[in-house]
């Protein structure tokens, strides 16, 4: 399973690097969002600091959604996924590989986004380990649900994924936003219950995803 996951993730990352979909579509969006917010709130640093967690996770969610759609789309090209199913490729390995590739792609996006926020909002990032750790775990939670839902809604129209994804991952996004808020306020102790909620939901989603993805693929 792990070997399949590694090969799958390497393949997805290689395809993304060559097609540069995330780079070309999300990074300009990230740049526009940061610049517009910076101009919109002018030099009101305290307001910018307050909106940073929400802004960060709205933008990241957009990137995650696009990365999930892209991860599913590349398997639809030439019916590659049918080939994988037909050849009995381990579905759990496929699932983990896809989740891992999405998380890596979105982490890159988050690094750029964080740097942009720090520079343009004049908002130094405190508690970096907490922020980075929570981002990593939340990415896993959202990517996990995204891959499963994208598989379920495949063929039912692309507009269903965003509609279904947000309500299901809202516990992850809300707790990640709170962790970021307390992290930026240098109050890591307050972030603890939210961190536990974040880890709990992401772990449940990951385990459920591993268990059900094979059934989703067969469907």
């Amino acid at each position, binding site marked *: 399973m792990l*070997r399949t996951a590694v090969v799958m993730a390497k393949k997805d990352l290689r*395809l993304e690097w060559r097609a540069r979909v995330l780079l070309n579509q999300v990074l300009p969006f990230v740049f526009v969002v940061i610049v517009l917010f910076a101009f919109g709130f002018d030099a009101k640093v305290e307001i910018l600091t307050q909106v940073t967690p929400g802004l960060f996770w709205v933008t990241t969610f957009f990137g995650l959604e696009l990365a999930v759609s892209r991860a599913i789309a*590349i398997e639809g*090209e030439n019916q*590659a996924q*049918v*080939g994988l*199913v*037909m*050849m009995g490729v381990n579905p759990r390995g496929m699932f983990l590989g896809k989740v891992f590739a999405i998380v890596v792609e979105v982490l890159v996006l988050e690094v750029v986004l964080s740097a942009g926020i720090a520079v343009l909002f004049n908002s130094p990032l405190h508690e970096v380990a907490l922020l980075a750790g929570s981002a990593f775990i939340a990415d896993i939670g959202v990517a996990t649900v995204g891959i499963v839902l994208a598989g379920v809604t495949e063929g039912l129209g692309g507009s269903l994924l965003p509609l279904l994804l947000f309500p299901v991952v809202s516990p992850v996004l809300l707790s990640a936003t709170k962790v970021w808020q307390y992290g930026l306020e240098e109050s890591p102790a307050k972030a603890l219950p939210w961190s536990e909620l974040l880890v709990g939901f992401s772990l449940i989603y990951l385990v459920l995803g591993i268990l059900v993805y094979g059934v989703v693929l067969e469907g």
Partner: protein
Amino acid sequence: MTDSPQGRLVARLRDVTVLLDRFPALVRCEFDAYEGEVIFVQGPNGSGKTTLLRLLGGLVEAMTGSVFVFGRDPKTEARAIRREVSYLAHAYQMYEELSGRENLEFFAATAGCDFDQALEWTHRLGLIDRDLGARFRVLSAGQRKKISAAIALSRRCELLLIDEPHALLDQVSKARLDSGFTELARAGRTVIVASHELDRISALATRTYRMSNGSATLVESA
């Protein structure tokens, strides 16, 4: 499951009907395949050839009747069956932005294909290293088909389901592919080929089924 003087029974369909949406793609279909055979499935477009292959691979389900592949029911044991099956489909089932060689490597690492054998197949079918180094999307339709075929033929399995293998190929490649089917059958594998190339496949098939309106009729045995 009983075997016969023809060898070990690999697949058996009895009174099978398959509906795709509401369209009856297979109707009361009967079909047998034994170890080491090359079976030719012929018939006009829409007669049910591809559905028959997909049914044997567990990609579609029978509404009525019984289906057994290696003594297993694809409805409940599709994954176990697929470990013993290779399927060359109409679609290339490859990644456009990977090179031919990278596609071979990927399927070798995940899907039980023998990389060296796949490489050998591509060379036998007339591809050179330069072709394999190019992105899949820039290759011609025939070159793409050859890479897909190489992967399907190099998979370590007992049953090969081959759908329209000659489409898009030049005459030399068609002949090499046919000799490959014969070699695989001699090695004890079962090869089921759906094709419109009547003369070509008839010459090497041990048995031929003619499909018409979703039903299969055995027309000859070698």
